[in-house]
């Protein structure tokens, strides 16, 4: 079995919480902090930490704005983030195909 695809998996995305954030953002142009928090059932601190990691990797961009005098934090995938996410999915599919091909 070729271990190459597994070794190539992006460790930033591979963590469960960050993968969840990336998946949600991949299906939407942008999502607010509260939308992400409620949908994923994360605490504010946990979500902030994961978003910061993704931001530092250049995968997620965070925009702060004001709507009706309330601060609004929205997150979206960057071009690099979308590319990394697509690459991650491709590798997962490759692993599935490779393992299935070995089955009798």
């Amino acid at each position: 079995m070729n271990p190459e695809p597994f070794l190539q998996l992006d460790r930033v995305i591979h963590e469960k919480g960050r993968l969840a954030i990336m998946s949600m953002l991949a299906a939407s142009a942008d999502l607010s902090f509260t939308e992400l928090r409620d949908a994923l059932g994360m605490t504010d601190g946990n979500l902030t930490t994961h978003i910061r990691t993704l931001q530092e990797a250049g995968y997620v961009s965070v925009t702060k704005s004001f709507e009706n005098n309330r601060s609004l934090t929205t997150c979206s995938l960057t071009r690099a983030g979308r590319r990394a996410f697509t690459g991650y999915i491709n590798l997962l599919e490759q692993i599935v195909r490779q393992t299935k091909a070995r089955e009798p």
Partner: protein
Amino acid sequence: MESNWASGHLQVIRTLMERSAVYRRALAPVMTANGVLGAVAAGVGLAARIRAPRAFAGYWMAVALAAVAGSFLLARRQALKEAEPFWSPPTRRVAQALLPPLFCGLALGLPLFAGQEGLGGAAAAGPGLFWLPLVWIALYGCSLHAAGFFMPRGMKLFGWALVLASGILGALRALGAFAWVEPWRFGHAVMGLVFGLAHLAYGVYLYFTERRGNEA
């Protein structure tokens, strides 16, 4: 084993991507408010004897406009309360799904509204008052069914129920049922039952299931 792990990851990703696209505003208040509005409007229509096709079409289109405006405000209030953008991608998808059938309903109602009959004129007995509410209900059901692809909690089923109700009532009418009911009374009664009470019942159902879902 690795295949299972990778497949599991892909499944999780798919589920999360779908969840991200789902409209998450609480629908119970919207449905309940529309139910009350529909039932009260039907009662007022019957009591005020709004019987000419023009008056009937204008009256119910105004009620629909009020319902849309009310729904919009309720959804916006929720978004503000939760510090979320109102015009989010899921909201846009739902609006895009709702619009074509609703526009069609408006287009079909306008000729009746633009007619020359005065209030309570001879044309009050016209077949338009039998068919227009049924067509409106069917189109409204289609719009909810289309929007249901981006909404949780049985919205597609509710849309189907409206389409079926319209079809069954139309078939019964074609077979000669309700011939004894004056068309304008039939129209208000159908609107009150389907737009009013059905919405109300669905709103109450959502009130309990949405709350349970949030508590879980």
